[in-house]
């Protein structure tokens, strides 16, 4: 249903928008400490850009860049990164997910911990959304 050749205007506008949306996703991801946003929103926006491209140009084109077999691993990599930060903070002498011990002083530790777990959230959310889209699109063929 989603792989037919689309119109010229739709394709060109999509080509124009997608890079900006991907960049915006990265901004939301790494600027979440200072403005609204964070891993959840960034992951969803990233996935939305990928899905938009897939809807216009066909899933096969996107699968060349984001192969389903690789994306499947990223679904768990994000979650493992998040939980891993918790385990590392235990080994460094704190409680689970206590970021204070991650760096030489507490505030740096908090920054590092938040950055890493937000990255984990972003990776998992983006991968989950992309993989659900792949599965639905493939199933409907």
């Amino acid at each position, binding site marked *: 249903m989603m792989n037919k050749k689309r119109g010229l205007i739709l394709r060109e506008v999509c080509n124009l928008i997608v890079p900006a949306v991907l960049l915006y996703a990265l901004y939301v991801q790494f600027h979440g400490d200072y403005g609204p946003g964070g891993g959840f929103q960034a992951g969803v926006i990233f996935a939305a850009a990928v899905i938009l491209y897939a809807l216009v140009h066909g899933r096969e084109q996107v699968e060349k860049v984001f192969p389903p077999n690789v994306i499947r691993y990223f679904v768990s990599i994000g979650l493992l990164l998040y939980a891993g930060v918790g385990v590392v903070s235990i080994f460094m002498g704190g409680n689970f997910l206590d*970021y204070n011990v991650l760096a030489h002083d507490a505030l740096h530790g908090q920054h590092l911990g938040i950055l890493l777990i937000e990255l984990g959230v972003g990776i998992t959310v983006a991968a989950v959304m992309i993989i659900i889209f792949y599965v639905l699109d*493939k199933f409907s063929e």
Partner: protein
Amino acid sequence: MDIQIIVDLCLLTLLTVTAVILLRVQNLLAAVLLSGIYSLLTAGLFVTLDAVDVAFTEASVGAGLTTVLLLGALAITGREQSVKRHSRILPIAVITITAAALIYGTLDMPKFADPNAPIHTHVAPRYIEQSGEEIGVPNIVTSVLASYRGYDTLGEVTVVFTAAIGVMLLLGGRKLKNKDNDE
């Protein structure tokens, strides 16, 4: 009239209209698009409540991705709702009783925007006053979500993860693996 009240009234009116139309349409494609509109209006309401982070999530997840994924699901299942003709008395009774119980429950709640409500006097003052020194992140929402409530967020990510596993097990496994020997 205060501009905020006008905006609130417009959004709430549109929200009600959308909800009523949503109940009445039989075409599932229209229903999916209407629920996207409903999410977008809710996001607008969150903005008027100064909850930009929540509005951001609602707009991107509720209005954006959920709509696309539901459209994908519709492509598998079909676009028309099957009409079933049976008595509506039981559903209406259940809904009336549930709604009455919920409304009765709200009678004990503190008034809207009451500064002495428990939610504003428990941990919120500490987050507002000390998260700058303890976490050092300007966005308090981020410090609550990622640091003070890190366990909860880990749980949320696990829920998202589980959703993907569920979809892959139900629909994906066979077809994603056996690319070449599709029927």
